[in-house]
């Protein structure tokens, strides 16, 4: 049975799963969950995902949620096909890849998602931007990306000289950050700009952007 992804085309977490499927040449079926109608909060959905979020997968009856575990599971299951090295197995290379994934989760995602929420999602829902919070988030993201600039001056990618899933994990929210007019976070830093261009110009990511639309 082909892998089923229950998600939303514009959801960053859904897009990460599709990104990895494309990198690894894994066939999938994307079933759209209507977030606007609150489908993700209905019992038929929360039965599979108690937190009522997108996405979750059904891999021949095996249910899994949270995008990063999903992509890890798929990377390990389909290790031999598609793009190699996204999750290294050598202990020290693996540790550095884990460090990169953790950097994305703790230093990038919270600040970028917060900025996007203030600039886009809140106004979309008729709420006003909290300017103090937005300023704080931008300041923090600037500090974090200054550290990225140092790291990426010494190595090609966040986990070393080869691309790993930790780099890919930045693509969905980073792209959304650009969409809300905040691309300068990347462009103003030469090493970050170089890295960002490399990650987002991958054919698999271009394919995600083209395909994951309503």
């Amino acid at each position: 049975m082909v892998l089923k992804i229950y998600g939303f085309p514009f959801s960053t977490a859904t897009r990460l799963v599709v990104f990895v499927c494309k990198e690894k040449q894994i066939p999938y079926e994307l079933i759209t969950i209507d977030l606007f109608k609150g489908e993700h909060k209905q019992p038929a959905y929360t039965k599979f995902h108690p937190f009522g979020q997108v996405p979750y997968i059904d891999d021949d009856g095996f249910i899994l949620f949270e995008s990063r575990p999903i992509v890890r599971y798929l990377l390990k299951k389909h290790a031999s096909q598609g793009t190699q090295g996204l999750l290294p197995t050598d202990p020290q290379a693996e540790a550095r890849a884990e460090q990169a994934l953790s950097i994305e989760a703790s230093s990038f995602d919270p600040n970028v998602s917060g900025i996007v929420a203030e600039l886009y999602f809140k106004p979309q829902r008729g709420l006003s931007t909290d300017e103090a919070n937005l300023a704080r988030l931008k300041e923090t993201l600037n500090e974090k990306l200054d550290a990225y600039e140092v790291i990426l001056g010494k190595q090609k990618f966040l986990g070393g000289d080869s691309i790993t899933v930790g780099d890919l994990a930045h693509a969905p929210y980073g792209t959304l950050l650009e969409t809300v007019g905040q691309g300068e976070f990347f462009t103003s830093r030469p090493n970050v700009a170089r890295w960002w261009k490399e990650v987002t110009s991958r054919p698999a990511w271009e394919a995600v952007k083209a395909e994951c639309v309503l």
Partner: protein
Amino acid sequence: MVLKLYGFPISTCTRTVAATCKELNIPYEFINVDLAGGEHKTAEFTAVHPFGQIPYIDEDGFKLFESRAISRYLAKKYAGNGPKLIPTDPKEEAIFEQGVSIESFNFYPSAIGYAKEKVFKPMFGLTTNEERAAEHLETLNAKLDAYDVLLGKQKYIGGNEYTLADIFHLAYALAVVEAGQGGLFESRPNVARWWEEISNRKAWVDVIEKGV
């Protein structure tokens, strides 16, 4: 050369790594980083940890930061030394990863957000933002309702065995309790059962009572 753990005694992230080491009987040397003196922002420190945070480890010259990455590395390297903190069966491992991700994205932000407003800011003479604290508390309540459902189906956050996914909750859950909100765990039967068990693990109790 014995593993070196650079951190701070009451730092949540340092305690997470210490708990992992103690579960797996990994000998280590704790080296205090002078946060009050700004040691973590010096050029010497940021040369190792570009984000100027704690902890980091130095294992015979191999340096690593990010407490969850450190814990994973140690759990894999010393897999035979104690309980199996990361499963190896593919589906069990996936459920474990789900639990780790749940902690990072569905627990940590509101738990630490609340503790920061109610405990850490006053500790440093800063004013609590009561509105933000209330938002974090509301989020935490909603998330823990989902935890109660999950923990009614599986014994621990990462499956039916105690894993790193549970260890990653310890320091942040303790912060919530110290912020006066232990009732959030106690009022939910499955969460209460789980919290009672994991907070009484010997390795964790050692970290709290004897120090990192």
